[in-house]
């Protein structure tokens, strides 16, 4: 083995899994000391040498923690340990910059193998997970494209009306709020239907929310 071993930091609250990770680290090549952490401590990882950080997503963390670590400690190689392996989760992890994605059912041998490869500087995402991430990327890219097409075609007034319709206002109420006649509101809404490719107000709101043109949470 050439070069110094890379230290491993583990964010894990389950003692059994912690034991498994320690065993995997011992079996992996190029991995040095193992330290268990209970908070996201970017101070440790911003050290000017590479480290591997294993994050168990079940421990109350979400994937934004990956972005935080990558941003503050560019040399840290983050490995996510997850119960979920659907496309959106894997793609989100990859988007945040993970070095590795390990499913818990994959077991000790897989984890040791992944740690060895990551210590050697490779990124490791199982091929079938990468495939589902690419499928998700397709959905995401198509939606982004559709949204940009609609966005450039709808006017500021139409967007305003869409937002009010999403809040449940009737045609008359929207007209009163904007100081225009109900017939004008209806004309705007008819145009919106065509641009969004829908037939009802509910569909229009749902489609606009999917495309990110309006935010239903606020």
């Amino acid at each position, binding site marked *: 083995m050439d070069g110094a071993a890379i230290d491993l930091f583990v964010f894990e609250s389950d003692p059994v899994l912690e034991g498994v990770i320690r065993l995997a680290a011992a079996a992996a090549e190029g991995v040095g000391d193992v330290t268990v952490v209970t908070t996201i401590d970017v101070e440790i990882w911003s050290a000017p040498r590479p480290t591997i950080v294993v994050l168990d997503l079940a421990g109350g963390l979400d994937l934004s923690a990956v972005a935080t670590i990558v941003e503050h400690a560019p040399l840290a190689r983050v490995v996510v340990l997850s119960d979920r392996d659907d496309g959106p989760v894997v*793609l989100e*992890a990859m*988007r945040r910059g*993970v070095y590795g994605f390990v499913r818990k059912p994959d077991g000790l041998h897989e984890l040791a193998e992944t740690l060895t490869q990551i210590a050697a500087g490779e990124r*490791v995402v199982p091929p079938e997970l990468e495939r589902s991430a690419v499928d998700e990327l397709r959905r995401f890219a198509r939606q982004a*494209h559709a949204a940009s*097409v609609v*966005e450039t075609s709808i006017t500021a007034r139409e967007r305003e009306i869409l937002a009010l319709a999403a809040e449940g206002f009737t045609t008359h109420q929207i007209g009163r709020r904007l100081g225009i006649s109900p017939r004008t509101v209806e004309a705007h809404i008819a145009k919106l239907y065509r641009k969004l490719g829908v037939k009802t107000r509910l569909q229009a709101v749902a489609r606009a929310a999917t495309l*990110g043109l309006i935010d239903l949470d606020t």
Partner: protein
Amino acid sequence: MSQRRAASAPRQPRRLGVVVVDPLGIVRAGIGMLVANADGTELLAEAATADEALRAIARVRRSRVVVLVGLGLEEPHDASWLMREIRERYPFHAVLAVGANADPTSISRALFVGADGYVDKRVEPDEFFASIASVGEREMVLAGPTSGDVGQIADGIYRRRELDAMLTQREREVLAVAAEGLTAREIAERLGVRERTVTTHLGRIYGKLGVGNRLAAVRMAARSGLVSVGTPE
């Protein structure tokens, strides 16, 4: 026609039609040969510019073809423009962006404007051909980019959406021109507005993006693929 013949020799499924668009003749020739010599595909047309490509595609009498678009296309219309046009005019055609070691942001931009995938010229011919076939089957293709790239490609699209949600269309136009390094007056001339209007737009853009100067704004725009900094290939 005789029924017997139809029964004994079922009609061959039609081969997948391919249109190759690339500014470089040697690339068109290479891809053209690959497509023409394969069993499942047929070369329908090739074009050296975006406009030539649209004319060629307009002549194609097929409901679905695969258009390979070289990212090296430039003036007067670039690859993004062409891919957007094809997506709009021929929603059933598949568009496969073709590049040489393209950076993840360029690939993000290609997918954002409507490409169904990206294939790198450095992959082996077998893989290149398989990519054409997959995209013809309505699958998304990323041949060449690594796992790390996939994450960055997704991130580029994500950032572009964020930027689009923050800025108006006019502000995006101003930012795109500003990225070329023009002065406020030059930007105003280009867009046909007053210089004061441009400085107002720029101030509002900085405020919305939470940045202090043009360089930082342009960097955000570049990471999102809104503007391209450097060459596409």
